[in-house]
């Protein structure tokens, strides 16, 4: 019974959201507000139940881990941004977060992006085969795209040729991204229609 009610509710809300395609209406507004409210509520409850309670309150209560009060304090003063008089306090937490983010980011970026990607561009161009052609395309693509983003000199002569080729590679990449995005959006539509047909409509008729 509970599952059936859930399916009907989900189907009704799906239709409410899709009704926007006809025009803006109260059903859409209701479903949209409900979604935002439930997501926020769920997030809040989940954070309390799975983060604050087991990782802060419980260890302090049972193991007397009072050191956890320090991160809790930094977390709380982050909320001081709401009160203009003490908003400056939040900068301590932000500084802490930015410091960690920057520290981790720099090492992570160099180790995880820059070096492996440069290594992946140093490719052999020996032999007359498809692999060589593929490697050549990668090398030309990387160099010409970098040329396109080289702004210290006017794009004339060889620089102009290079940047034109570079922008062609960029456009192809945008095209691939757009194609994938279309596929993503259609997948979501398929997912919803699959639900409406096989979880909602078909069971109604098969029971009847």
């Amino acid at each position, binding site marked *: 019974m509970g599952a059936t009610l859930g399916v009907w509710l989900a189907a009704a809300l799906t239709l409410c959201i899709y009704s926007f395609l006809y025009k803006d209406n109260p059903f859409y507004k209701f479903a949209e507000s409900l979604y935002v409210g439930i997501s926020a509520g769920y997030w809040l409850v989940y954070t309390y139940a799975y983060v604050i309670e087991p990782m802060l309150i419980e260890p302090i209560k049972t193991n007397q881990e009072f050191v956890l009060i320090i991160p809790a304090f930094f977390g709380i003063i982050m909320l001081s941004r709401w009160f203009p008089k003490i908003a400056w306090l939040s900068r301590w937490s932000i500084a802490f977060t930015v410091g960690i983010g920057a520290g981790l980011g720099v090492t992570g970026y160099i180790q995880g992006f820059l070096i492996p990607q440069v290594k992946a561009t140093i490719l052999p161009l020996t032999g007359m085969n498809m692999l060589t052609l593929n490697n050549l395309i990668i090398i030309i693509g990387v160099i010409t795209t970098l040329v396109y983003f080289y702004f210290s000199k006017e794009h004339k002569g060889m620089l102009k040729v290079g940047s034109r080729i570079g922008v062609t590679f960029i456009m192809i990449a945008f095209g691939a991204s757009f194609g*994938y995005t279309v*596929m993503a959006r259609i997948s979501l539509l398929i997912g919803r229609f699959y639900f409406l047909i096989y979880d909602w409509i078909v069971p109604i008729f098969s029971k009847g």
Partner: protein
Amino acid sequence: MNDIIKKLTAIDRRYLFIIIALVVVIPLLFKPKFPIIPKKPVIDAYKAVDSLSAGDNVMISVDYDAASMPELQPFLEALLRHCFKKELNPIMLVQWQLGAPLGTRAMEKIAKEFDVEYGVDYINLGYRPGYTAQIVGIGKEIRDYFITDYKGDLIDSFSVMDDIHNYDDIDILVGLEAGATGNIWVQYAGARYNQRIILALTAVSAPDAYFFYQSGQIEGLVGGMKGSADYETLIDHPDVAVAGMAAQSFVHILIIVFIILGNIAYFFEKRNKGKTLGGK
């Protein structure tokens, strides 16, 4: 011809929505069979999992929510089927709070199919905040972040966790990603700890991960619903993603037609404007 073009450019977009809806619904109802030819990045992902031996640990990170469910949930289910069939031990963790129920739902559903035991053959560690610090920290000791599983039971009370401490004990990591968490797995778990990684991404994010695949930083790449359909085909268990592929193909054809018509209309309009202005 000009009249037709004018009508086409002024068409109410709601008619287009109806056409797209029909092109999706009809194949879903009649289920025409479309050949599904798995792509190399997905075959590599499949091979990486398939090459593992019974008892090996597969860490699965659920980093998406309901908005990406149609694309990634079928892959999660297919991956779990593959793991249980090969007697691998899936260790699930979640980096997106709203993805927690999706991961749990898939795990409970597939575990039932294979009659495997929670805590012995698989475990669900649930969500913890601060994924960057966590991903770095797991390199030393997973217990610094996950003392308990998603229900709040101590992970040391489960035999599946006996020999799992850090990435050295994880044979492969599979990240199901709707955002940038996949980059963090590659940057830290992959680059710093040499963790073998497979990424399954929403179709929107997939093009941004191909360079990881090309550089060998990830061993396989599963992109969107098509990637999920490929994986379902490879494990020989066609399911929701395969069912959606016919509709996907028809809609793609329709969109290509729309693009061609749109361009024809654009050029006609441009030519007509040129004529009225007395230009070329």
